[in-house]
């Protein structure tokens, strides 16, 4: 079942325009992100506090990771990294539930967004996701929850699909083996 969900999630996420990178642990996740950004010419990477304070993760980068201090910093970065809360196999979505405004901005304003997700945290479908969403909002005080599915896009002009409008132009989902501790 776990494999099925993982495969379905990957298939749906790719179909929605995301790139899925599979890694074994947090260290590998950091190395993979550093490599991808390196290949794209490098630059400042912003990350949310939980990642900045995680030495296993942050030590893998040549340049120190940058905190999301304000919107201009995030918008001017090369990429942003933030951990998602859970995934949805039916749609290939990563769910974000951060209350902190700057944490949210990492997923909204970075030109390239790396979404970290544990493979064990994938819900099968929207019905299950709806239950988890209800819990997040009604019991855990999460005020702003988004299902993020692929990069920002538009088809407003002649219904031609164009990637990267106001939000990220590229979405990488870094799928880590195992489950989050939470």
């Amino acid at each position, binding site marked *: 079942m776990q494999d099925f969900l993982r495969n379905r999630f990957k298939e749906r996420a790719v179909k929605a325009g995301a790139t899925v990178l599979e890694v074994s642990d947090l260290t590998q996740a950091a190395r993979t992100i550093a490599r991808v950004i390196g290949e794209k010419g490098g630059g400042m990477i912003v990350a949310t506090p939980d990642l900045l304070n995680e030495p296993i993760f942050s030590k893998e980068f040549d340049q120190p990771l940058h905190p999301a201090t304000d919107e201009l910093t995030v918008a001017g970065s090369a990429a942003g990294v933030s951990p998602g809360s859970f995934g949805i196999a039916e749609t290939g979505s990563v769910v974000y539930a951060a209350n902190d405004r700057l944490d949210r901005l990492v997923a909204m304003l970075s030109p390239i967004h790396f979404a970290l997700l544990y493979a064990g945290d994938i819900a099968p479908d929207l019905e299950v996701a709806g239950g988890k969403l209800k819990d997040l909002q009604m019991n855990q005080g999460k005020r702003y929850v988004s299902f993020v599915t692929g990069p920002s896009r538009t*088809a407003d002009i*002649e219904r031609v699909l164009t990637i990267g409008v106001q939000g990220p132009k590229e979405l990488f989902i870094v799928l880590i083996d195992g489950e989050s501790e939470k």
Partner: protein
Amino acid sequence: MSNNQPLINRVASLAGKSAAADHSPGHMEDKPAPFKQRYRKALADSRLSRNLLNFQRSWRVSRDETFAEFKTLGDSGEKVGRLPKATETVAGNFVSEAAPVEEISDRDFQEMRHKLAGIKDRVIDNQEDYLDHFIQAARRNGIIVYEADTPAELNNYVLELCKRKGITTVVKSKTMVSEETGLNHVLEAEGIQPVETDLGEWIAQLSHERPSHMVLPIIHKSRQQVAALFSKVTGRTVDPENVTEQVRVARTELRQDFLKAGMGVSGANALIAESGAVMFIENEGNARLVTTLPSVHVVVAGIEKLLPDYDAAMLQLRLLARSATAQPITSYSTFLSGPTEPGKEIHLVLLDNGRRKMREMPEFKDALRCIRCAACADVCPPYQIVGGHVFGYIYSGAIGLVNTPFHHGLDAAAQPQSLCVQCNACVTVCPVEIPLARQILDVRAMVVEEKGLVWYKKPVMWLWQRPLLFNLAARTAGYLAKPLGSNGFIQPSRYKIFGRQLPLPKILKTMVGWRSLPVPAAVPGRDLIKPKLTATAQPPVVPNGAAGKTVAYFIQCLTDRLYPEMAASTAEIFQKLGCKVVMPESQHCCGLPNLDSGDKAGAMVMAKQTIETLEKVEADYIVTGAASCAIIMLHDYQHLLAEQPEWAARAEKLAGKVMDFITFMDKVVKLPAGALAAPYNETVTYHNFCQSGNVMGLKDEPRRLIRSLGIDVTEMEESNVCCGFGGSTSADFPEVSQRILERKLGNVEASGASVLVTDNPGCVMHMRGGADAQGRPFKVKHITELVAEQLRRYEAAR
């Protein structure tokens, strides 16, 4: 990687209003231009209907695919598909091809929409309770809630909030409610700059237009038009072919507005009562910025957006994204339940503006289920011709014709509503089962009740309601018209005087230049049939399920007066199948022309006449060759007569006996494939008369019937799209009718067929006349004509 510097400083360049007053962003007139003006403008724009045709065709394919994919994926990944084809055996020594049985799945479009419609109905029926619950929950979460009864109250609330906080720039994500209230206009008048940040809305704002589509605001525009606009606004040349570059212009230009705005205004796709949360979905990511960056956020939403809980919200997500943009889910689906940090203010303005009134009217309350997906526009034939600025008012598409009287007054809806051809395509794709076509007729009846019938329909309807006088007039017209016709058609552009074409007035060319008219018959069909009815029943030509039964034939006025031969051959078919045929003598018209014209009183008179005539008949079945008459009797009479329960009950009883010809052949006669095979060298294609397909669901049935004749059907593209006749539409808006017909005849011609068959005499008249006037290389036949001919060939060959 592009930097975030604007291409030019757009705002500064426009600061000197005098130089740029002609294209200052966003300034817009208070109200749309008069209808006639909008209509003429749309017809003159040759790119409009081409853009919309491409859009409708591609949307249809991808929308159908995404629903089909969802169904076959299944939760567990197992294929949930069709059961093996069952073969149904019926009495007698023949076997009919049975319809494939679709497995009922909770992932089926029909199941899902039925479920969501039920949920929305429960909320609508208890709206005040849900609203109270929602408001209390939202307030507990720290949202400031304000209830606005009118557009002015909503606009003033936002305006006062801006003034109180000294806000001069407002970034907006897409909200139809703010279009409904004209918020931008009010803010601009007070020197506050609203900036639309959804790409399509921004383009509309820059070109001083309103969205012509609820989901794709500028779907009527081409990339070249967008490039020209962007070049003008930015002062730089923008590549007219490169959509990616055009999108980049918007991203760069809008970033600065996001960063300096003091307020964000967003809409809502749903209001979740159990938690007080607002759901909004989008693809661009602008709504998330609008709701996160500025410290003041105002949500504006209609009260009909209420949902009970998260489960319902998930169901809506599945239906909405697929119906709106043919996606399984949009890029961002956000659930906002309150302010996330100190200093952030969230206001929620809930708008009534006629919604409570709608709720109190049984014939309209279902429209409050609407989730604003715009699928009704995406399948609408007249919408494809004129676009949403004409087919609607602020809200466009079928739903716009229904809710405009409540939000913007009956005057605003009076003319747009008459563009509807009643093809019912919208009803088949609506994700919340709104009976849009019927509601549009109810709006039409309101318009006629208040303003009266248009002058040229008054004498026609008056005469129509008087069977004896009508009979006399029709016969007289038949004699008088005889010299005008040639080969059965009247086509004035062919009239010659001294070898030269007769000069015709423009109005005549507009009305009939593109479609020849049939010559009315001096001797109606009933006169041809009557002498043959005394014969006793014949033995059936082939064994079938109707042999020995009595069929009452309802001829239909058009068939009776224009195509008497068609009427005679229909009676001949019944007799050859071994039926006893009776013809109710006082039969006249079912009332459809009245109903279609909004003449509800006249329609009721005709309906009662027809019910009285047909309930006296002693027969097993009442069959008509006119699918549209069967449909009004089966589906509209009860609604039409709802206020007179005794008559409604009689209508219900009648509906148990009435059948259209195709259904009769499929469900009663049941001929196996090839039963009437005989040499026939034509290529046949079939036009699904829109109501037969969309209301009665007849798609496989006519094809099975044609196969029983030993004839294969060569399918054309879009066989279920309307032919453009649309009852009175072809008289009210001949230009629209003509262009829809061209789409249809083009599809027929492309199929390579030499014979086009359909099951409604109105469509036959329209398409036959069009094929004649335009010299198309195929013949148009009614299904009864094809069956009768093939029966004769079958007998001859035997």
